[in-house]
């Protein structure tokens, strides 16, 4: 049964990768990478139960923290870049 869940999560990760590759705007790509990271956390937690090794839950927790910080950093970068005026680029 855990195999069914992991296959569903893996299919969703592949779909998110397709969206990240063909996304028209940069925000589509960031959204797809965010979905990919969240699904990685879910997949790690499912794998911990699939193989009966609870150590993987610590990896899932650490990955959730890193993913959140990474997404917010990328968003700050793009938001500041879009608001920056063309002539004063070295604010």
């Amino acid at each position, binding site marked *: 049964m855990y195999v069914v869940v992991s296959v569903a*999560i893996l299919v969703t990760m592949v779909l998110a990768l397709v969206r990240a590759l063909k996304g028209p705007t940069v925000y589509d790509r960031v959204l797809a990478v965010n979905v990919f990271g*969240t699904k990685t956390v879910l997949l790690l937690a499912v794998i911990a139960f699939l193989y009966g090794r609870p150590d993987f839950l610590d990896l899932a927790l650490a990955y959730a923290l890193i993913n959140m910080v990474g997404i917010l950093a990328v968003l700050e970068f793009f*938001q500041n870049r879009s608001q920056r005026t063309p002539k004063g680029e070295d604010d």
Partner: protein
Amino acid sequence: MIDIVLDVLSWILILLGSACVLIGGIGGLRLPNFYTRIHAASLTDTMATILIFVGMMLQAGFTLATLKLFAIMLFLLLTGPTATYALANAALLSGLKPDAVTDSDKPKENTPE
């Protein structure tokens, strides 16, 4: 008896969660523009996370794994909508219009159907 009930309930929750994951993934690929895609993706962030993690908590019982699962679920539920809000806010501030008609993926080729 109560074991069988908890087992069946947890499998139902986990299968519903995987259905939510699949629906969100397909919606994130197939929906026409950015603000509809962010809606589908945020469905998988909250609903699928709650269903799958509560199902696995019912499988684990009163152990340390349940505590870790609860911590991960709480963290994902706090950060997922925050990241989605920041993403939508950044897109709106950068001038991406929330227009329901525009199909930003395929500009011209889907009109003959």
